[in-house]
């Protein structure tokens, strides 16, 4: 069974922009997917569809068994609990520490406070931010905020991670570490879908699938 299934998916915005055209895509559990393409090509739009922020204007899309259609807000919200999203603008909550933000990612899941705190510390260690766990997020650099957002996504041990430019604000070393972290999640059978401009990082990984989008049309190739 596929984790994400898209058949003939189109996305047209009300202003007439055709963001995605006839997308056919099948993603299996544990797959690593890299989405590349120039700015405005439709990468973020595709991720928005996967999270249920946007809805296909044509075609059929199913994520984690949930059809992405209007009028199913509560079911889609329930589906999101199995996804670890990393937003381009991080969407961290100001006035809270890094660890509080990470814990927020799983507070409403079935997890004890003790377990949640333990997992949050582990997640922050994985992204190399254990020393900053009690810093207010507004006092962190952009790169550090990005890593907090990644820790928040992995703390809930999701079935699917959807990350929009997760290495965009990181230096080379940190970017490699984060990419390796995502690649290591395969062992837990977690599917990772990443949009990125950093093709040089993908070439080093040699595993997963590369999806290139241009003007809303996708082209796929395997890396391994």
């Amino acid at each position, binding site marked *: 069974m596929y984790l994400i299934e898209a058949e003939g998916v189109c996305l047209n915005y009300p202003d007439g922009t055709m963001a995605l055209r006839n997308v056919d895509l099948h993603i299996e559990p544990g797959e690593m997917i890299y989405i590349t393409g120039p700015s405005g090509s439709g990468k973020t739009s595709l991720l928005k569809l996967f*999270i249920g*922020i946007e809805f296909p204007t044509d075609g059929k899309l199913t994520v984690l068994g949930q059809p992405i259609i209007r009028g199913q807000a509560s079911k889609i*919200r*329930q*589906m*999101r*609990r*199995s*996804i670890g*999203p990393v*937003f381009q603008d991080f*969407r*961290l*909550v100001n*006035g809270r520490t890094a660890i509080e933000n990470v814990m*927020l*990612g799983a*507070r*409403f899941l079935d997890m*004890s*406070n003790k377990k949640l705190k333990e997992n949050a510390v582990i997640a922050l260690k994985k992204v190399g931010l254990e020393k900053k766990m009690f810093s207010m997020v507004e006092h962190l650099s952009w790169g550090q905020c990005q890593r907090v957002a990644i820790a*928040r996504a992995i703390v809930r041990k999701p079935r699917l991670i959807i990350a929009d430019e997760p290495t965009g604000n990181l230096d080379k070393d940190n970017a490699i570490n984060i990419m390796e972290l995502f690649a290591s999640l395969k062992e837990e059978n977690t599917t990772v879908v990443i949009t990125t401009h950093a093709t040089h990082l993908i070439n080093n990984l040699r595993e997963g699938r590369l999806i290139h989008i241009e003007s809303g049309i996708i082209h796929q190739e395997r890396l391994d």
Partner: protein
Amino acid sequence: MNNFGYFMKEARTIIKINFMSNILSIVSIGLILFFAAATLSSWWISNQVVEIIEDEAEINVYFAEDIDKKKVEHIINNIETLAGVEEVRLVDENEAYHRMEEILGKEAKVLQYLDDNPFSPYIEVQIDLKSMESVIEGLKNIEGIDQIRDNKEIFDKVRNLSSVLKTLGYIFIVAVGASTLIIISHIIRTGIYENREQINTLILLGAPDGFISFPFIIEGMILTLGGGLLASIILSLTLRYAYSVMTGPLPFIPLPDQKSMVTNLVSMIMLLSAVLGLLGSLFGLRSAKSR
């Protein structure tokens, strides 16, 4: 309960974001609840007065002081035959004096300044309140009666006052309910607006509505309970002052027990605050969601 600490912390953060607005809301709600409770306590006191007057419904019958004992007994016998009369007894001038001493309490020392006992003997007639008018008509036909004094006029006035205060109390409760709900739902909506980014993030992370709403419900409850506490403090102080003022120059007014009255009113205010806080928050959340 796993997230109770988190919810409390979030509610505190939400309150801190609009700290002055929240403090002013607590003061407004406190004053509104105080006025409602003050009206209710006035009704309570007047109602108590009515009950006491009802229980002690009596008519005092005065006769000419120069008539002999036999004639007084004749008058008493005649009164006893009237329908609605429950008990008839003669109160002599000494008993009348002692009764006044009891009524005046601490102020009874004023009686010491009088050279002679100024009180006249009279006949005390205990009656069924419903028969007051027919008893008065009957008394008018008995020979030897000089003056009939009943408390019907005072009773009617107090009963009217009590009924006005009761109506006012209900109006106040409705007004308090409506205004508190408006204030709280407005504050909650403002809080939601101020925290919209965080709420959107939680929605994108898949948080259920209950998880997102709970801190706002706690905020609403904190505001109304804070207002209720303020109203309770002002009311307790006001009642203490009112009792000290009323028991001095107005010793005839039978006031309810101050402690039990304050306890009952404070319990009522706090319960009302909690209910209004919960409803106001839910209205606020609902209207914010529909927007």
